[in-house]
């Protein structure tokens, strides 16, 4: 009997219901909890029945929202009870009270496993249900194989197998690494042949989870899914009990279409055709009927079909049919359909070519913005935001502005952010943009984030034509009786900078501007006062010749705030006061703000952040994210970052990267002239700190010239140079969207590879690039191993070699996609044409999800790779040495700053390169004589001889003489060895970063007087 059961429980529930108020209820609950607690304490006397009753009571109390922090143990212990009623209660209550992270669950794993593998199918069901609902990692580890067995066992009844399917789904979804599904595609395909629709529905859910993670393994399931859809849509052979309001299992239809959306495309023409027939039938055959449930069910199927059609990129005709359908939906009375119509239209925007058809519905969508239902209004806003472009921006933004004054408070912030973005992105002219933002601040100041007004200031600053207009507008708003504080900030800032452009207009002389701004001061907060002080200082400076009355007024204000408790205001007051007394000298300091470097709007970033959420990845969402990021790329131009275009790189020797970068650095300095915040240690990173940039320059502590100068010094000094270059070498270039950080130091890996022939060149969370090289004379064969570390493919893989002029490099084809967990080999053939220390660069990029990663990696095809050791006897050495009599074939150099090492260590180092050390050739034990052969196409095999003279008293310097039959080779080899001998970090950097102007012709100046140097060296 259904209503049979426990009297005690019923009595308790009635008692609770009879409580007149919350306090009484709490008293009753506390009493019961006390009772249960004491009963649990002396467990001996408890019958199973009583235990069961108390556990139910606990669950009830828990459900009412009270903390139940005991008795979990008793609930869990019921699981191992021998009889069904107790076991059932144990399972259900445990599943409700605990979640996967509870420790108590571990205690039960064994009991649960026994039930899963036991013969009693009702017990199996209970166990599978619990694991399916709250199973965590440990369950996956100990139970997954058993569950898999149950799912495919032919002796199990459907009721067990459908539970097993969903249980497995849960374990897999939570811990895809623990549940082994390799080779499951055949099993999955078999499961799709299942006759029992309950099992089939559950299996389909499992398939969705599997293909969401890796569709590649499940291609064989695709035609089966289409078959199932055909069967259902024709209502062939579907048992009566599985039709829902006359529709053959709508849930199974939806799930099947969901699974199909995870396959990128359908190649087989027959399958594709049958699928489109089914979809067409769904699209055309769904009518609006009276019965709500029938309607809902059929539209659930319809909307899923729409999603699938979009995914498959059907022909234009079918697409426009879909849009027409959606257009009908957004105008119907039924709110659910309206909501879904708008939602799906937004998704539809991602399909090209239909935007125009969607635009036809603009009027209707704007009407939906006034819908009584906030869910629908939100959808409408999203859709308007998505469909906005240059052609309709004015209409849409003005509509949004109008709506702003009536919109719910919860939506205003989002609304104003979106309006601001659209206005900036699609402004037909910038004065309109300024209008929109000022209106926005006027209407919804509280909801306008700082980013919005920072941005308008940036844009005004960067567009001279706009400045007078903005100033006029700002002045107009100040006339309004009550304005929002943000408006005070913007207008004060703009008028401070540009009010002198209005001087001839009525009501705009400095005195008037000052008074109208100063009127607002008593009502504003400290952060605004700080801005006002800057404005006053600027007004004062712009008033030439000085107006003594205004001067005194403003000085009085500065004086007043000199003792302000707010440090920022105090500092400004003191500084401005002093500066403004300096008269003409202050003009430079107070000059107009320089242009801001062009940068991506912080607003777009913000919008993007709010859009990204962490939910499970899905096909639709992935597409949506790609879409947004595309939109961003279009709008962001940042020449200030100064990356040389790739084509240029291809022609120029690699070292020039650093030159170009340094130029842009210099530019940065000139641009930001007059400010102190120039020192941006990472010029490659776009700054997000708008506030810092905008307000920073207002704080002036010293003459700008000196500041800029010190920057120059910093950068051009040797330390600065290496630092800048170092960041260049380490930072993956093109990092606008690089969220991916390399693992390990790229520079160190490169350095290692210069001395070894195999190892890892680059690694990040998604990919590892390994290298294996073989060198023979002037030929080299480099194997690149591109290893995908993930369970999802890496796409848009591109590798480009930027070779220096002395290397001929041929890269075989790099595949565009690297399959999950696969490794791809790309051979690279290298021919060395002549001696040079320049380095080849691999420009490598790929995409993972929405992350576009681009790195430029130096390839370890360096000079020493083309050396081969050769030993020479004294009889061979001396004639050769003497015949190469002097520059440019024989060069001598004194090297200072050598890292201290013993002679043996140095000899060791040479051997690694590889050079042959010939002991005993030099009579002086402090000297080394070294020989090697260099191979290149131009020089062929060429003998190189080196003599190192060290000073035992001072290990940090030595004299080096290098000789070979080719002047370039002699020079390059000498420089190379020098780099290796001075301290380590520079070694790795130098080959790529040496300035290109260092060429053989210019260098010998250093050795103009070898004799003197030798004297200095040897005393």
């Amino acid at each position, binding site marked *: *009997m*259904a*209503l049979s*059961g426990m009297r005690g429980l*019923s009595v308790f*529930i009635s008692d609770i*219901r009879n409580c007149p108020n919350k306090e009484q209820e709490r008293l009753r609950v506390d009493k019961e909890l006390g009772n249960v607690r004491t009963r649990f304490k002396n467990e001996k006397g408890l019958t199973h*029945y009583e235990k069961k009753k108390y556990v139910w009571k606990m669950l*009830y109390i828990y*459900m*009412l*929202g009270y903390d139940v922090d005991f008795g979990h143990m008793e609930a869990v212990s019921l699981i191992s009870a021998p009889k*069904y*009623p107790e076991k059932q209660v144990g399972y*259900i209550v445990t599943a*409700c009270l605990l*979640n996967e992270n509870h420790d108590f669950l571990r205690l039960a794993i064994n009991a649960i496993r026994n039930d899963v593998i036991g013969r009693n199918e*009702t017990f199996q069901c209970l166990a599978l249900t619990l694991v*399916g*609902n709250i199973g965590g990692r440990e369950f996956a580890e100990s139970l997954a194989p058993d569950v898999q067995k149950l799912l495919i066992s032919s002796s199990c009844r459907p*009721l067990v197998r459908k*539970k097993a399917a*969903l*249980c497995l*789904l*849960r374990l897999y979804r939570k811990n895809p690494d623990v549940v082994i599904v390799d080779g499951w595609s055949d099993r999955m395909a078999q499961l799709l042949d299942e006759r029992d*629709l*309950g099992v089939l*529905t*559950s299996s389909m*859910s499992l398939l969705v989870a599997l293909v969401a993670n890796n569709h590649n393994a499940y291609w064989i399931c695709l035609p089966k899914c289409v078959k199932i859809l055909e069967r259902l849509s024709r209502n062939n052979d579907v048992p009566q*009990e*599985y039709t829902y309001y006359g529709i053959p*299992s*709508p*849930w*199974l239809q*939806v799930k099947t279409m*969901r699974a199909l959306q995870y396959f990128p495309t359908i190649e087989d023409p027959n399958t594709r055709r049958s699928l489109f027939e089914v979809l067409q039938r769904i699209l055309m055959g769904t009518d609006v009927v009276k019965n709500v*449930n029938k309607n*809902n*069910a059929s*539209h*659930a199927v319809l*909307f*899923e079909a729409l999603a699938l059609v979009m995914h498959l990129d059907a022909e234009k005709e079918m697409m426009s049919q879909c849009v027409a359908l959606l257009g009908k939906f957004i105008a119907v009375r039924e*709110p*659910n359909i*309206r*909501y*879904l119509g708008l939602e799906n239209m937004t998704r539809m925007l991602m399909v090209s070519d239909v935007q125009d058809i969607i635009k036809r519905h603009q009027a209707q969508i704007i009407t939906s913005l006034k819908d009584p*239902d906030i*869910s629908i209004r*939100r959808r409408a806003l999203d859709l308007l935001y998505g469909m906005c472009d240059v052609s309709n921006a004015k209409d849409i933004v003005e509509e949004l502005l109008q709506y702003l004054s009536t919109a719910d408070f919860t939506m205003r912030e989002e609304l104003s952010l979106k309006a601001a973005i659209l206005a900036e992105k699609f402004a037909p002219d910038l004065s309109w943009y300024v209008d929109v933002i000022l209106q926005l601040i006027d209407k919804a100041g509280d909801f306008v984030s700082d980013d919005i007004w920072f941005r308008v200031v940036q844009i005004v600053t960067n567009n001279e034509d706009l400045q007078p207009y903005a100033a006029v507008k700002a002045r107009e708003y100040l006339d309004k009786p009550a304005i929002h504080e943000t408006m005070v900030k913007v207008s004060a800032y703009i008028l401070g900078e540009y009010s002198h452009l209005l001087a001839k207009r009525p009501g705009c002389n400095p005195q008037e501007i000052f008074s109208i701004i100063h009127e607002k001061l008593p009502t504003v907060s400290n952060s605004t006062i700080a801005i006002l002080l800057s404005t006053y200082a600027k007004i004062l400076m712009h008033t030439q010749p000085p107006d003594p009355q205004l001067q005194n007024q403003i000085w009085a204000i500065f004086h007043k705030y000199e003792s302000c408790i707010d440090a920022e205001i105090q500092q400004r007051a003191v500084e401005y006061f002093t500066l403004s007394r300096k008269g003409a000298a202050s003009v430079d300091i107070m000059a107009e703000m320089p242009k801001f470097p062009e940068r991506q709007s912080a607003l777009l970033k913000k919008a993007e952040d709010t859009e990204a*959420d962490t*939910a*499970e990845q*899905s096909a*639709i*969402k992935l597409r949506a994210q790609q879409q947004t990021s595309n939109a961003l790329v279009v709008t962001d131009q940042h020449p200030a970052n100064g990356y040389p275009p790739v084509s240029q790189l291809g022609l120029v020797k690699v070292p020039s990267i650093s030159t170009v970068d340094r130029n842009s650095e210099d530019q940065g300095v000139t641009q930001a002239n007059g400010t102190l915040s120039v020192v941006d240690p990472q010029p490659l990173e776009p700054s997000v700190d708008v506030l810092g940039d905008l307000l920073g320059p207002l704080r002036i502590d010293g003459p700008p010239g000196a500041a800029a100068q010190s920057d120059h010094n910093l950068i051009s000094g040797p330390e600065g140079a290496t630092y800048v270059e170092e960041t260049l070498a380490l930072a993956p270039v093109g990092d606008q969207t690089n969220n991916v950080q390399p693992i390990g130091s790229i520079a160190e890996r490169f350095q290692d590879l210069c001395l070894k022939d195999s190892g890892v060149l680059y690694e990040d969370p998604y990919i590892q690039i390994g290298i294996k090289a073989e060198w023979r004379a002037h030929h080299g064969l480099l194997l690149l191993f591109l290893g995908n570390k993930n369970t999802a493919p890496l796409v848009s893989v591109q590798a480009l070699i930027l070779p220096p002029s002395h290397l001929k490099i041929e890269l075989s084809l790099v595949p565009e996609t690297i399959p999950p967990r696969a490794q791809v080999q790309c051979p690279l053939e290298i021919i060395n044409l002549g001696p040079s220390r320049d380095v080849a660069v691999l420009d490598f990029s790929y995409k993972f999800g929405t992350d576009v990663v681009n790195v430029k990696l130096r390839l370890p095809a360096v000079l020493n790779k083309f050396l081969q050791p050769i030993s020479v006897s004294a009889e061979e050495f001396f004639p050769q040495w003497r015949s190469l009599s002097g520059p440019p074939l024989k060069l001598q150099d004194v090297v200072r700053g050598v890292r201290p090492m013993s002679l043996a260590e140095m000899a060791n180092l040479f051997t690694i390169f590889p050079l042959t050390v010939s002991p005993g050739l030099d009579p002086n034990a402090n000297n080394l004589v070294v020989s090697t052969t260099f191979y290149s196409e131009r020089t062929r095999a060429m003998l190189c001889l080196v003599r190192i003279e060290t000073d035992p008293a001072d290990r940090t310097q030595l004299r080096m003489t290098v000789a070979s039959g080719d002047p370039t080779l002699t020079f390059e080899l000498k420089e190379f060895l020098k780099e290796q001998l001075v301290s380590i970090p520079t070694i790795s950097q130098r080959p790529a970063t040496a300035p290109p102007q260092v060429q053989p012709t210019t260098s010998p100046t250093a050795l103009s007087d070898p004799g003197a140097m030798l004297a200095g060296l040897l005393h």
Partner: protein
Amino acid sequence: IHFVLLISRQGKVRLTKWYSPYSQKERTKVIRELSGLILTRGPKLCNFVEWSGLKVVYKRYASLYFCMCINQDDNELEVLEIIHHFVEILDRYFGSVCELDLIFNFHKAYYILDELLIAGELQESSKKTVARLIAAQDSLVEAAKEQASSISNMIAQATK
């Protein structure tokens, strides 16, 4: 489906089932937030509410709100009909179900829900099958009880 909630019009919780791990604190917070959001919505509005990056599909039956929480891009109508499907099964089991049935037999509601959903996915779309399985469970419990009472009778007689 992340979780299922049954809330009465007065904001009393009648059933909760969590398929994603929420701690006790989070659970209370979710219930509080959602009651505020859903109970205040008028009739004739759509059955979907967007909430903290997720979506809640709800439907009101008499004085009870049935709510299910899903991801943004899940199929809303499908879930709406899962709710209705659940209600129909309850209806069939209790014979024209009312809130009181669910209050005093909340455990039965849990049994039924477990036959309908596992891991937040629909397990069985046939009302008949679910009804059959629940009936089988009930009879198992009955059988055990009879057995138990006969044993206790025997013990009682033996110890007389």
